[in-house]
């Protein structure tokens, strides 16, 4: 599949900003544990104008929550651009294709496609994990739907979906030397932007980005780095010990442990600010993705304190999906 930072007109606001070379800011929405649409609308309206797009997660940590498609629809209605996540854990290839079409129909213009945490990590460990496809298959399937206008089987669609296609990568997990190759495979499969795992290890990140640049991938994919706003040493230790794939160096833990407990929230905020500043200096990184486990207040404070406001508007506006289809057919 052809890589896509260059090519047809942007399919989403996020894509338009990235292509215009703006440093983008996305955030992880808090997942809802109920059937109240106003909860999602409230969270979305808090973030609107503060971030360029917000991720609607798909049963994060393998625990059920409000559907990412439904959340994405509500977020889009609230005037914030959603990035709808879909994992391979809970759906087979039929359901994934149905949901990709469904997402496009509901006004979703960015999708983020991933394997997903294993059911053993969640509160339904007895469930059957699907993993009919892997995340690279799913990326390619999204490109087949969008660019070929067919299902994976080859059967034609009456109207292809239009979305900007994202993937995830974790430069901080072993095997480190394979990670850039895996990113190349994801780009080959169809990824146009990548949100990377939480960064606590800047030297490792720099090494990864420079190798990715050497491989010529930066012309084909936009990289976003995830930054976490830690509230306490305990939260950081939880990430290190309980959430798989997160690399919190000992030196960082030591820095937190030396801070009295009543000042740890401030220290976490300071660390996030430092990380954002450092990431902005790395050539080849196109934006940040902000994550805070409890509540969005820390994210809202951070974008302000980091001087990331006001958020830019894409120039020239977006082409409506309908016109996109006409232009590409």
């Amino acid at each position, binding site marked *: *599949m*052809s890589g896509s930072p260059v090519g047809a007109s942007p399919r989403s606001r996020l894509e338009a900003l990235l292509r215009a070379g703006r440093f983008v800011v996305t955030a992880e929405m808090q997942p809802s544990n109920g059937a109240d649409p106003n909860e999602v609308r409230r969270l979305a309206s808090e973030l609107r104008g503060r971030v360029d797009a917000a991720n609607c997660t798909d049963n994060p940590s393998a625990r059920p929550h409000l559907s990412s498609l439904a959340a994405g629809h509500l977020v889009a209605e609230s005037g914030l651009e959603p990035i709808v996540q879909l994992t*391979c*854990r809970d759906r087979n*290839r039929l359901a994934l294709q149905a949901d990709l079409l469904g997402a496009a129909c509901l006004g979703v213009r960015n999708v983020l496609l*991933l*394997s*997903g*945490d*294993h059911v*053993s*990590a969640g509160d339904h460990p007895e469930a059957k*994990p699907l*993993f*009919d*496809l*892997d*995340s*690279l*298959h799913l990326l*390619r*399937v999204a*490109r*087949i739907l969008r*660019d*070929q206008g*067919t*299902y*994976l*089987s*080859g*059967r034609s669609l009456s109207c292809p979906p239009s979305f900007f296609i994202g993937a*995830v*990568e*974790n430069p901080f*997990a*072993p*095997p480190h*030397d*394979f990670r*850039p*190759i*895996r990113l*190349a*495979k994801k*780009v*080959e*499969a169809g990824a146009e932007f990548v949100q990377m*795992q939480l960064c606590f290890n800047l030297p490792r990140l720099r090494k990864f980005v420079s*190798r990715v640049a*050497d*491989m*010529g*991938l930066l012309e*084909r994919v936009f990289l976003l780095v995830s930054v976490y706003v830690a509230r306490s040493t305990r939260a950081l230790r939880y990430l290190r010990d309980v959430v*798989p*794939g997160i*690399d919190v160096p000992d030196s960082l833990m030591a820095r937190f442990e030396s801070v009295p407990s009543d000042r740890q929230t401030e220290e976490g905020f300071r660390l996030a600010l430092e990380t954002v500043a450092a990431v902005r200096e790395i050539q080849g990184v196109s934006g940040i993705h902000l994550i805070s486990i409890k509540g969005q207040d820390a994210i809202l404070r951070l974008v302000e304190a980091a001087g990331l406001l006001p958020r830019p508007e894409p120039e020239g506006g977006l082409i409506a999906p309908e016109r996109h289809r006409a232009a590409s057919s």
Partner: protein
Amino acid sequence: MPKNGMSRLAEANDHSPFASGASSARSIVGVLDAALVVVEKALKGVLFDCRMCGQCILHSTGLVCPMRCPKNLRNGPCGGVLVDGHCEVYPDRSCVWVDAYERSRRLPLWRDHLARLNPPVDWRLQGTSSWVNLARGRNRDAPAGWSASEQSSEGVRSESEGPPRSEGRR
């Protein structure tokens, strides 16, 4: 009358060496198939802890069976690999893909096959012999949409300077 699932199943069963009324030629092929399944399972089970997916890609995974991964990942490790290189689901075992990467570096052949995009699994082949499937070309039956996408990316590749298949510096 269109065939329902059960009659198709019954038909598929005719290929079994134990089906009554099957022609002798067919049953010889069936016995050979069954024998190859037993041999392949025994051999690759011992050597690679093979899970008999029937569409072997060991050459592109450093001779480590990717179906041992709890997520059945055919194209590389997930993001949950622990800092010590172990599996997030079975923390006492090393990640299948960490092993695959390390072993692929030591192989005289197929090292760059790790960068290949492997197509989705055909679950109908589960439990069959990949040798038989290879001989019959069944291991190459990717879904039509997938094959078309490979052709279109070949086209793009020949026009540009090529896909990002370089392995980077080690």
